[in-house]
């Protein structure tokens, strides 16, 4: 069984400041990792994914994440945030055995609040 821990429920940050949203996962098998964003009253949008290869993954809207297998972490970063980044961010994991995208386990989410 897999699990995802998002260490911060809310992260306030000033506009144009950098931000890091933390995510740790637990799994007994190799995994795929994802970050999703959810704007108010909307569904989930995929920001980025780690499948294999380079541990630094670049996504949409200037976000990137680094896969650290030894620390079982997949932290999300952005060097300079914008007001429009205010949203809830979900880290998610899927084990490779089940076919990758098929059964995705989500964390409880981190609310990013960008302060003007």
């Amino acid at each position, binding site marked *: 069984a897999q699990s*995802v821990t998002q260490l911060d429920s809310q992260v306030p940050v000033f506009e144009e400041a950098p931000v890091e949203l933390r995510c740790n996962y637990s799994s007994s098998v190799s995994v795929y990792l994802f970050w*999703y964003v959810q704007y108010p*009253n*909307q*569904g*989930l*949008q*995929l920001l980025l*994914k780690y499948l294999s290869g380079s541990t630094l993954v670049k996504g949409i809207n200037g976000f990137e994440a680094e896969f650290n297998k030894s620390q079982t972490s997949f932290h999300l970063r952005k060097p300079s945030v914008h007001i429009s980044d205010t949203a809830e961010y*979900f880290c*998610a994991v899927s084990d490779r055995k*089940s*076919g*990758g*995208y*098929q*059964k*995705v*386990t*989500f*964390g*409880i*989410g981190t609310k990013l609040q960008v302060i003007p």
Partner: protein
Amino acid sequence: DAGVTQSPTHLIKTRGQQVTLRCSPKSGHDTVSWYQQALGQGPQFIFQYYEEEERQRGNFPDRFSGHQFPNYSSELNVNALLLGDSALYLCASSLVGYEQFFGPGTRLTVL
């Protein structure tokens, strides 16, 4: 190209009733997954349909059932509704083994 669509957008039911939620996948997708997102929580996997059969299931009771039609659209049925079933229900579609695209969800309130 329309993305994943869900209907209705909002729904209010009372305890003990039954509800049916509907999902139309993104064009070209053949797999539909359903998730429940309670307030303040991340989405929880309910089940997944491919080729009109339930392929995987999460930790949800048998009150939660589904169906996939030959055109790949899907329904989620919940019987004997409980207050705790109040949530946003998300549908995601994909080609089997590939990235899931999410719909906007159906907000179910059980009174």
